[in-house]
């Protein structure tokens, strides 16, 4: 669906999405890198389970949430991709390791 502009070049970065290795350009956001790799389903909603992907690409809509290196609710469009980063689909609400009982 998306193609990279021909004038964008640079070093490559390798990261994984749900365990699958993908390459990105250094400086890409996680959202740009995933979209360029053909991924459009970033998460499912906690309410209906509907599939979602980036909408605004500028940090305001929160549609692009993924889990990064084990931490949920990260905005893929605001996070720069890094070598070895483990990105995962976020299924429903984020989970936390601290138990909340209230």
């Amino acid at each position, binding site marked *: 669906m998306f193609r990279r502009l021909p004038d964008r070049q640079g070093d490559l970065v390798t990261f994984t999405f749900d365990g699958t290795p993908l390459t990105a350009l250094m400086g890409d956001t996680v959202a740009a890198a995933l979209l360029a790799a053909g991924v459009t389903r970033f998460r499912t909603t906690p309410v209906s389970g509907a599939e979602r992907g980036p909408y605004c690409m500028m940090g305001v809509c929160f549609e692009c949430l993924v889990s990064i290196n084990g*931490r949920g*609710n*990260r*905005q893929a469009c605001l996070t720069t991709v890094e070598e070895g980063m483990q990105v995962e689909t976020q299924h429903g*609400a*984020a989970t*936390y*390791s*601290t138990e*909340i*009982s*209230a």
Partner: protein
Amino acid sequence: MTDRDVLVVGGGLLGASIAWGLARLGLRVVVLDEGDTAFRAARANFGLVWVQGKGLGKLEYSNWTQASAALWPSLSDELKRETGIDPGFSQPGGFSIRLTELELQRGVDAMNTLQGQPNIARYPYEILNHRETKARLPAIGPTVAGSIYSPLDGHANPLRLYRAFHAALHKMGAAYLPDHRVERISHQDGAFTVEGPWGTMSAGRIVLAAGIGNTRLAPMVGLNVPLVPSRGQIIVTEKTMPFLHHPVGNIRQVDEGGVIIGESKEATMDHHRPRTPVTAVLADRAMRMFPIIGELNVVRIWAAFRIITPDGFPIYEQSRTCRGAFAVACHSGVTLAANHAFTIAGHIAQGEIPASLSTFSSERFDVSAAA
């Protein structure tokens, strides 16, 4: 001059609440405000309706704050009824979390001194150790020493409160004029004329509610509003599941799920960008109070200037030389919103700040007051 009774300079929290209060009493009000980029604490505050700990050294301030907390339910109901906007007010009681035994002891001493003042309206509070705090706030961290609880404390949604005041003002037929910064005020033949690049306007009465702008405007009508620099910083996290059902002095989880954190005070007016070292201290303390906060993503951080007098207490005053000119300033405009909308607006409508509030006159700052 015939179609308006009062000019209110400043459409922030004090201006909006007092203008609404005046319009409710049948006065024809015009609010002159700056534009969207103005310094406006009304849009930047923490939203506490907070009583505990206030009034050390001035018991009238404690009583005044308690009175507003007691009037808040009526304010909330009336705004909701008039505008359909819910200011998100609740009063479940609030906790001051103390991280160390020393902090806890200081808090206890302060409450003892405060409530030991003669003529103070005493209110209930409890001192809780770690275990007792944990029983009521299960999400606290293992190193929290304890807390102080008072059932009078509550919170509101400050942006919805602000919008509700403006919607109510509009409904009452009061005029709100943004981009009408007042540069000069003159007083002649019982009329006040305000002036700016946009033109001029006159009325028989004027209320200065310009926040940090009051210091410059007040002397033009024989008033004095000294303020000291104080910057506060706020952190907002992503929305998460409810874990905190009471406001805590520096942390609260809002009805929509986000957590807001803020207790910083910096003596500066330099710039309005948040400073990282301050953010780090706020975040570190918050995580020690509630470890879950350490797992949340931060979505916003901002800094804003407080409107705070040298002794921290409000100013409500009518000019001695230019009768009909009033100045209002305080650093807890959310907490005191009910007093401003009902009580202060009533006094201004009557044309007199009563002797019972003379302790809030700016004359307390005059060096020569005793001479």
